[in-house]
């Protein structure tokens, strides 16, 4: 049903650390690899080895440059479904194929009842949904629902593919509805934030901001600024005479 269920308190989601993401696209590739054979399989590509390849991906890694007039910095920015608490993609769905799970808040699509009208992708400001031309249905991040509850995997593997793949541990998975969970404490500690809060969709996922830049002498623990060398005091003797002679 497209009505949004009452939340059970559990809000599974991702936290992405923009300070340490190196923009390697391992999350995107690993996601594609897993999901091309998982719950939403296949993630169709067309013209995959041609000039204009086109295909369904649940993760997209942007690279931004920020500029405050003095400094620029580069920020790698993975973008995927934020599993919003007020997902407009769910309420606009005319068939009920798009739904939010009551037990953990994951937003999913029922591929058996999706009519492929694309309206949900129009309703999402975050570009989380991509249409599969070959299947005629919309597809999106499932938070690797077929991994996180998968008893045949070792416990260590029961996390989304993007989280497992990240070589810098920039991605974290957990229950953001529980204030005492490791992930919630991480968000608290690092000042994690939601994207475009002004739209009111209340994303569950959080992003950790890049840490303040250490580009001043004081940032590294040394003196705030180096004092200019004191005026040399000319002594007596040969070097004193030389100093005076050269300073003239």
């Amino acid at each position, binding site marked *: 049903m497209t009505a949004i269920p009452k939340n059970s308190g559990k809000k599974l989601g991702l936290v992405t650390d923009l300070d340490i993401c190196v923009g390697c696209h391992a999350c995107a590739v690993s996601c594609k690899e897993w999901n091309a054979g998982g719950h939403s399989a296949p993630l169709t590509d067309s013209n995959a080895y041609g000039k*204009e390849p086109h295909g369904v991906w649940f993760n997209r890694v942007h690279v*931004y440059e*920020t500029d405050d007039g003095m400094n620029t910095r580069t920020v790698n920015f993975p973008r995927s479904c934020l599993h919003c608490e007020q997902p407009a993609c769910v309420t606009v769905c005319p068939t009920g194929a798009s739904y939010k799970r009551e037990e953990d808040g994951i937003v999913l699509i029922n591929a058996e009842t999706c009519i492929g009208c694309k309206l949900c992708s129009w309703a999402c400001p975050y570009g989380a949904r991509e249409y599969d031309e070959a299947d005629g249905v919309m597809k999106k991040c499932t938070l690797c629902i077929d991994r996180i509850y998968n008893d045949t995997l070792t416990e260590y593997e029961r996390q989304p593919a993007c989280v497992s793949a990240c070589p810098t541990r920039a991605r974290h998975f957990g229950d953001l509805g529980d204030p005492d969970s490791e992930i919630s404490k991480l968000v608290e500690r690092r000042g994690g934030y939601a994207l475009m809060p002004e739209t009111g969709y209340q994303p569950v996922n959080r992003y950790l901001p890049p840490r303040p830049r250490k580009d001043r002498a004081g940032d590294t623990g040394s003196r705030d600024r180096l004092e200019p060398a004191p005026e040399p005091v000319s002594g007596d003797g040969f070097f004193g005479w030389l100093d005076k002679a050269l300073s003239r």
Partner: protein
Amino acid sequence: MHPAYSVILFTCSSGAGYGLLIWLATAWLGGGWNLDPPTALAASLAGLVLVTIGLLSSTFHLGHPERAWRAVSQWRSSWLSREGVAAILAYPPTLLFSAGWLWQSLPAGLMTLAAYATMLLATLTVICTAMIYASLKTIPRWSNAWVLPVYLAFSLASGGLLFAVAMSLSGAAERQLLGLVLGILTLAWLIKWGYWRFIDRQRPASDTGTATGLGHLGEVRQLEAPHTSENYLLKEMGYAVARKHAARLRRFALTAGLAAPAALLLLATAATGAGQSVLLLFAALLGLTGISIERWLFFAEARHQVTLYYGRSL
């Protein structure tokens, strides 16, 4: 937004069809306009054909048209679903109302009831169509108070132009009626002009800074796109028409949709018989052309929030 021809055809065609049915129902209920019954039947059927063409075209662009029946289930939350429900509910009274023009044994009371139901459900369907767009907060150029009046006014205006042809064929296209049609057409374009003025001055709250949450670090620019070729998002939501083309197309829309039909309507007040019908037919065709250009622009000028991630502005 990508201006898909199926959606432009759907909104223009069903808008005109429902508009025509509203005029015909008004003609029956008002009783003042002397429509020739066979012509009225033909006009009602034309309205139904336009509505049906629109609905079929909107169905065929689905990924799974055979599942379209499922779309009537979520009317509690989805405007698209509500539109489907309203459109289906409109068929029985509209068919009865159409048949009633020639069906002598149909009680007048039932015909009147069918006319009211036709009017109400046709209006509701147009409202639902408009609300599908007006309810999308992701597209500031759609999510505003202008969109609903624009859709309703253009539905009545295009339906009115077609109704004038039917009245002329009945030999009853009097000066007052043509004046009324011209008034509504002018009003529709005035509302559209207000819409254009509004979107040109709009200052949306979101930009790439709020989309990424990096705005506090200064101006945020896209350095590298996440993919080397276009993806679904850019094809569907990244379409943008250049401002200078938009300005020219607005002039085309106003010329074809307002100036030309207005001149033909004025000429038609002086004409009679077949000559008048031909003039009014051309007025209707030009009016629909203008509205189609307007509808194409409605999509092409709309900007989606997801494009902020690709370094664009709203």
